[in-house]
């Protein structure tokens, strides 16, 4: 029952995220945009490359969708709406989201095409950049909560949300989450103007619909993770918990989708430089500062 409810909420959320994404790219609010795009995609012909690696080609979009869904099973939307409250919840999210990389590598290698392959390997370069920046702020969050249970992490923010307690961690996690979901400006993997669509280039029809759906669910999962770790989950003054969750998740998603419109696409070398020379020292500083605050503040 809980599982069905959460999947339904994820589907509604994915629909709203698709509407928001259509708004950020075209500037108009069209509530039927996802339905028309979906029908168009499903109706188009499914072109399969001639000498593709069939196993990889078929599995990749499904694995992307599944890994995002599995990551969402440990996230609490309200105090009792969580599919499984694993004791290692905060680490499990990261473990599930690494399979996004595996899915994109398969999608890159499978179609036996140059653009797809370059897109796939570029995402591996991005992973080397963002992997540490995802885990280190989560360490600081778990330090404050003294547990890896996601419900406990939300409960520990009852008096002060983590975004005010650890603002540096929030910025780093937000940037790393955008890089994980290959949103602009970190979207060299599926760059429209440069790589002819990159990893998405060889997919068409049903498989492209599943790929795009997987990416939408990934964006929602990452927004929910940001809300649970940094924005206090379901806590808020007047509205019921589920309303606060929904508002916060949609706000974070809109922020993620809008943030890319202002910045140019970042090259892999610059991203790696930035993340390893600037990001990781800042993440370590964040852990140090949070440790001091926890020990000093009662």
């Amino acid at each position, binding site marked *: 029952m809980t599982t069905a409810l959460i999947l339904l909420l994820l589907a509604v959320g994915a629909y709203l995220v698709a509407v928001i994404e259509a708004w950020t790219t075209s500037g108009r609010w069209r509530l039927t945009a996802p339905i028309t795009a979906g029908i168009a995609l499903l109706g188009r012909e499914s072109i399969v490359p001639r000498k593709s690696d069939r196993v*990889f080609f078929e599995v990749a979009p499904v694995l992307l969708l599944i890994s995002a869904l599995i990551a969402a099973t440990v996230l609490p939307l309200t105090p009792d709406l969580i599919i499984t409250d694993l*004791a290692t919840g905060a680490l499990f999210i990261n473990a599930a989201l690494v399979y996004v990389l595996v899915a994109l590598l*398969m999608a890159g*290698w499978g179609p036996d095409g140059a653009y797809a392959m370059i897109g796939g390997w570029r995402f591996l370069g991005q992973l080397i950049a963002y992997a540490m920046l995802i885990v280190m702020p989560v360490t600081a969050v778990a330090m404050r909560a003294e547990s*890896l249970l996601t419900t406990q992490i939300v409960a520990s923010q009852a008096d002060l949300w983590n975004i005010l307690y650890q603002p540096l961690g929030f910025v780093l996690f937000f940037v790393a989450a955008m890089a994980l979901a290959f949103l602009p400006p970190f979207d060299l993997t599926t760059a429209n103007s440069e790589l002819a669509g990159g990893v998405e280039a060889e997919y068409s029809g049903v498989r492209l619909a599943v790929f795009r759906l997987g990416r939408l669910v990934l964006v929602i999962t990452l927004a929910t993770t940001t809300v649970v770790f940094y924005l206090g989950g379901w806590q808020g003054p007047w509205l019921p918990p589920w309303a606060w969750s929904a508002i916060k998740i949609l706000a974070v998603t809109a922020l993620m989708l809008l943030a890319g419109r202002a910045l140019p696409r970042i090259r892999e070398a610059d991203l790696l430089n930035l993340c390893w020379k600037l990001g990781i020292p800042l993440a370590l500083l964040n852990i140090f500062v949070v440790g001091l605050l926890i020990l000093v503040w009662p």
Partner: protein
Amino acid sequence: MISVQLFFISFFGLAAVWFAVVVFRTHSMMRSALALLFSQTALGAMFIGMQAEFLGVLQIMMMATEMSIMAIFMVMFMMDPGGLGKMDMTHQKRLSVIAGLVAFVAVVVVAVFADWGPLASSVPDAAQQIEDLGLELLGRSMLIFETAGLTILTAMIAATAVAVEPIKRNRD
């Protein structure tokens, strides 16, 4: 009669061994690397089935990253990454098969016929395990942990130093 736990451990064990066989039987290098990845994931699932939840999640996470990096190194260094040429890349065939079989039989014999002592009755739950592991890491095994950290740092610096391209100095 067979408990659910035993069934899952056996299932994931079979999956791990099957993927490990695929690693060396397939001709495509990319499939080889990803088969190793899924073998390690099955192992991580076995760990979770044996109620070592932290280790299982850690194994799944780390091995996915490591095997993906191995995949790109395979594509860089191997002659036929797609596997369409069906080259034979083995040597010492008889010796290695015999050595593998001898090792397998020896370990199975020890595993089956040794007396492992009394079985334990209950396992602490996962949150308690994580807390105990943390206290152990920073308490009794602090020296081991610090040595491991220093070793990782040395290995990182050494690997980077070995892999960096030597600077060509102009002699004029």
